[in-house]
């Protein structure tokens, strides 16, 4: 465990604790869509961030045990690329949905047209 913390570590800790707090309260308030599985995933992701912040060397141990210690940069780069592709696909899907919504809205509006007379 480090004796001094950098600013980025403090920020990561603050964000992680906030996300865990929010997930826990949402779950116990019974908000819609908050399942136990989602809560566990949230704990795994943000809890993992907290663990890494307190014990940064753990990432090397994990990389070593998995066998990617020499290729860690390639793994990180591939991760970024995958995330970029996912964002691209998501934005494309949103764009398509937006256009479909507009088209439906237009069709519905034009249904009234024959009833109107100048």
């Amino acid at each position, binding site marked *: 465990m480090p004796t001094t913390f950098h600013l980025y570590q403090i920020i990561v800790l603050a964000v992680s604790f906030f996300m865990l707090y929010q997930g826990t309260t949402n779950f116990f308030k019974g908000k819609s869509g908050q399942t136990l599985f989602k809560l566990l995933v949230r704990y795994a992701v943000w809890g993992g961030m907290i663990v890494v912040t307190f014990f940064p060397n753990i990432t090397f141990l994990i990389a070593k045990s998995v066998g990617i210690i020499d290729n860690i940069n390639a793994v990180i780069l591939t991760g970024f690329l995958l995330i970029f592709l996912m964002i*691209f696909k998501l*934005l*494309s899907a949103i*764009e398509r949905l*937006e*256009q479909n*919504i*507009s088209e439906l*809205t*237009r069709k*519905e*509006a*034009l249904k*009234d*047209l024959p009833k*109107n007379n*100048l």
Partner: protein
Amino acid sequence: MSDKNSRIFIVVPAYNEEAVIESVIREIQSYHYSNLIVVDDGSTDRTAERLSSLDRVITLRHRINRGKGAATKTGIEAAKLLGADVIVTLDGDGQHDPADIAKLTLPILQKRADVALGTRLINPAGMPWHKIIHNKLGNLLTWYLFGLWVTDSQSGFRAYSRQAVEKINTRGDRYEYESEVIREIYIYKLTFKEIPIRVRYTDYSMNKAQKQSFCNGVRTAGKMLWKLIA
């Protein structure tokens, strides 16, 4: 109504324009244009109520707000279904002077152009300086992305021939729609004329939240770029 005007359809997209929509429509009607299509783009104020009190106006309503481009397109589709020969689009906030409709439709009726683009920047007297800069940046981006230089790529006051609207196919729902029309003019090699128009910048039109602000301009530019790669 003159025979010439009976072939002209005016499309007015309106979103939360309860304060001015009645006067805008009455002013257009005072120039003897009776084929009016107003698209209420999911207004949350009393725009729909105001429109229902008007005679000789076709009112279409978007159940939810889809943006100026989407509303304009709905109006144009309606005009096509009603057999329009010439379609004019103008804003619902009263900034466009209906007296200029005749100037815009003239080259279309005389078959000298497929599209007439109202331009504020040939004679920008009275136009706020930030609007001038904003529009020039819009022109530059439109030219860079779509390959056609026009003096006012963001103007919503335009006239189209029937042939032009049959070809023009836009995807933009919001303010990027105006630039997409320029792209379509370029792609389909439509003939166009730029017609100087008068714009009335009132406190009302300048203070509306959904108008082209700097942030909206950045968002519009982002959407134009996105549509090129998506």
